[in-house]
């Protein structure tokens, strides 16, 4: 559509309402009135030169961002206002009302020229950013010194934050989460950001300030492993609780039968003996504060028989039932924390039992800092053997220096320096993104450290804990806010020598919940073949898996069976008197032959004397 009359079209909330001669002046007029407070601050106006249109928007759902207004090369937020704001005489909303700060939507942003810092203001400047960090969202602003880290590391750092154990909810004692963690002694970080405080996250801290020395320790912290101090662990460093909820329901079945929470009586099918139910209270549910181990019954329950035939076979009248109790899963143990009995909307009774267990940091547990520096605990060393400074400071954690240069997480190093200054000054330091330049920060922290008698670069002279000798190199040391992540050895460790097998193939089951075996995969198999290790291979493939003895008929080559009554093997095709040999084969192979038979393909086996 071409414009004939050269008039500027005005749209209000997307609707064409008028035409004006000078769109730019019209938009400016609206802006002025808005700053004076004549029209609502929620109105945004944009003049689009290319289309010669003015878009006025006052509808809901626009994303808007605050800017400080600049007029005549001067920020309207002057020193006087700054002082008043610091004294809390005025607040942010006051500034918004007075037109000093205004919210702009995406369309109006196209009309402005904003600068990051006050020094950069020129003739054309119309707005000033409130703070450079405003360009980020909440999560990005929680990170400290992100401008010093490699860009690719930030998403990884947030990923770690999600996995951190902390204080997830104040009412954790009355919650019934399927799985949850509670860090025993969460600490405020020594370096935080404005947003961190504004979001009240210090009240939900999810980490602790570890004293970290960037040093090796006999190879126990190579490739991302860390060494931690046993004494620090004993004092509660990284200690947490793991809560797990088991639940069960009293189901109703067709025919008026239903489950019952009860201590099963000896007449019940699958009764496991009096001892097995000893931890249950008289209502059939485990008592609070009872120590439980794997395999212990925590909810006693009886269910009606699975098949109706069973009932008729044993005669009506007797109410037969089977044991359907809930047991603690393999490898789990703890204390019963909480028990809840309630009803569902379908008026059936449900029980929830929370098991709590103490998670003390151990070998293989995962820790990580706010700079995507994650690692597993490679050794827990007694304090006597850890390096120490002349003041007797012993680090909580030894971090290998090799993890730093490649990953370019300089924020981690800066945090160590800053947190050290923070400890010395007794004031939490600020790490808000883009608030100060790197050199400025280093000089400031260096001055603080130097004044307290430390090296201004954050290095400390350390002494070997084992020999007492001074290390020839000084070691970079400082506190870092570390997360204890929820990947823990105790929840993952599993071993098996014998155990459950799959019904079809008789091969071991797979996965931890079924206490399965570790599969010898195809390429590992090829490696064994390549080494000619025939007996190792046979051991893994047959002996530790699905070995079975089958009887092969000498005449027809088909499989027979062993008749335990006559105490002799029988071939069903050749009848009595047939001669059979026993062979050890993989059960899966027997299944294969059976399935081929079902397709009318008979594989005859001819045995050679070996």
């Amino acid at each position, binding site marked *: 559509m071409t414009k004939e009359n050269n008039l500027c079209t005005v749209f209000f909330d997307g609707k064409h309402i008028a035409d004006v001669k000078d769109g730019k002046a019209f938009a400016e007029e609206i802006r002025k009135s808005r700053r004076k407070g004549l029209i609502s601050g929620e109105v945004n106006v944009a003049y689009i030169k290319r289309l010669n249109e003015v878009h006025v928007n006052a509808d809901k759902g626009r994303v808007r961002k605050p800017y400080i207004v600049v007029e005549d090369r001067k920020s309207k937020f002057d020193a006087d206002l700054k002082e008043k704001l610091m004294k809390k005489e005025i607040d942010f909303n006051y500034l918004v009302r007075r037109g000093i700060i205004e919210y702009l939507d995406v369309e109006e942003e196209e009309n402005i020229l904003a600068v990051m810092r006050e020094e950069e203001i020129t003739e054309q400047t119309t707005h000033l950013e409130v703070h450079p960090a405003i360009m980020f969202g909440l999560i990005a602003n929680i990170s400290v010194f992100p401008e010093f880290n490699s860009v690719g590391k930030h998403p990884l750092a947030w990923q770690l934050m999600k996995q951190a154990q902390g204080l997830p909810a104040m009412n954790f004692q009355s919650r019934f989460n399927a799985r949850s963690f509670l860090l025993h002694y969460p600490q405020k970080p020594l370096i935080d950001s404005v947003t961190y405080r504004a979001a009240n996250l210090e009240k939900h801290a999810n980490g602790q300030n570890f004293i970290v020395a960037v040093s090796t320790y006999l190879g126990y912290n190579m490739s991302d492993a860390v060494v931690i101090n046993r004494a620090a662990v004993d004092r509660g460093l990284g200690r947490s609780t793991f809560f797990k909820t088991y639940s069960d329901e009293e189901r109703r079945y067709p025919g008026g039968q239903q489950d019952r929470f009860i201590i099963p009586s000896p007449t019940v099918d699958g009764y496991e003996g009096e001892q097995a139910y000893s931890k249950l209270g008289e209502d059939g549910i485990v008592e609070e504060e009872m120590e439980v181990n794997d395999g212990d019954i925590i909810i006693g329950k009886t269910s009606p028989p699975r098949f109706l035939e069973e009932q008729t076979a044993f005669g009506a009248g007797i109410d037969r039932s089977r044991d359907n109790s809930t047991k603690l899963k393999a490898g789990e143990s703890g204390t019963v924390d909480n028990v809840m009995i309630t009803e569902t909307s379908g008026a059936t009774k449900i029980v929830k039992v929370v098991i709590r267990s103490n998670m003390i940091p151990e070998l293989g547990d995962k820790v990580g800092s706010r700079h995507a520096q994650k690692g597993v605990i490679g050794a827990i060393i007694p304090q006597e053997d850890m390096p120490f400074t002349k003041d007797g400071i012993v680090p909580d954690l030894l971090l290998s220096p090799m993890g730093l240069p490649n990953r370019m997480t300089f924020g981690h190093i800066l945090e160590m320096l800053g947190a050290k200054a923070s400890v010395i000054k007794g004031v939490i330091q600020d790490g808000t993104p883009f608030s100060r330049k790197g050199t400025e920060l280093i000089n400031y922290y260096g001055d603080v450290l130097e004044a307290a008698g430390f090296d201004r670069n954050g290095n400390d002279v350390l002494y070997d804990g084992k020999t007492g000798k001074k290390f020839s190199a000084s070691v970079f040391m400082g506190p870092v806010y570390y997360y204890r992540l929820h990947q823990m050895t105790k929840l993952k460790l599993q071993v098996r020598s014998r155990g459950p097998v799959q019904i079809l193939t008789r091969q071991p089951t797979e996965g931890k919940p079924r206490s399965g075996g570790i599969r010898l995969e195809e390429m590992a198999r090829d490696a064994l073949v*390549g080494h*000619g290790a*025939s007996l190792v291979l*046979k051991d893994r493939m047959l002996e530790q898996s699905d070995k079975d003895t089958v009887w092969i008929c000498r005449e027809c080559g088909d499989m027979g069976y062993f008749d335990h009554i006559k105490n002799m093997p029988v071939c069903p095709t050749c009848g009595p008197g047939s001669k059979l040999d026993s062979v050890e*084969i993989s059960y*899966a*192979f027997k299944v294969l032959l059976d399935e081929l038979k079902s*397709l009318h393909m*008979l594989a005859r086996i001819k045995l050679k004397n070996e």
Partner: protein
Amino acid sequence: MEIKKNEIAYGEPVGVVTAQSIGERSTQMVLRTFHSAGITSEVVSAGLPRLIEILDARKKPKHPTMTITFDRKMASDYESVKEVKTKIEEVKVSSLLGGFEENLKAGTMVLDMDKEAMTMHSITVRKVMEIISHRFPDVELSNEGSSISVRCRKRKEIKAVRTIFVNIRAEMISGVEGIEKAVVNADGDLFYISTSGSNLKGVLEVGGVTQENIYTNDMFEILNAFGVEAARAAILNEMMQVFAIEDTKMNVKHAMLIADAMTYAGTIRSIGRHGLAGDKESVFARAAYEETIKHFVNAAFFSETDRLRGVAENIIIGRQITVGTGRVKLMIKNKDLEKIKAED
């Protein structure tokens, strides 16, 4: 001594070791794609795609190329090498055209020859006309300066006319069929020719080219021209070439095993279900690899016997495999056995 040291032990599963050696290098090649800024204009497919091409025994390589070298005397003479180059480079009518006009209804076409292109390939208008009139007796030709007028003698259907005209434009004037491009390169002060496109037999007929000094990366051409032993050497060479370009090394014995396995039947066979793996003796080994049902059904139909001599089938049934420690057997003399029994 050296031979003894490098001798392979009895029962060593060399095939698996070869597979692993090649497999390891291929995964490395996928991870690190090697880019070289090409100085020559020839395009060579390298790396994993080329390796797969070799092992699959594709009939035509994606980028067939030939290298033609000459004896010392001739190679140092640029002019004579260039002469060979012009002789083998395929020139079509269409590549000599500045433009053309055709009238399918009237059955006429005017070919506007490009003078520059003609001189570059040292071809005259007369020669072009000669070739066309020889190959297409149905058309009448006349010459006007640098353009050739073509006219069909008989009235034909438009479709037939068009076919003739298209064929005329695709007609080869000089060179060897299939050699799309040839470039003279220098190795020190010796010149050689590398081509894009390959035609071994055609190029060999050109004067100045001898069979000792010619190479193509098309192993089927080598097979057809020189026989299976040469093809084996070509496979070996091409495979080592892939690793050499990628700057990795592999023991040549592995490539030799592959080349032997691919050619022992007298022709080139691929590795995979249509070639080597499909020809395995054991039913179970074949069924475990690919097309399970087909192999079982055929085995049942033709009453095949599995003698359980390979590796895969023995793993399936759970027997000791027949390589490595599973290949050797312990023997004892009867009188020694009696002696042991007597001691007990």
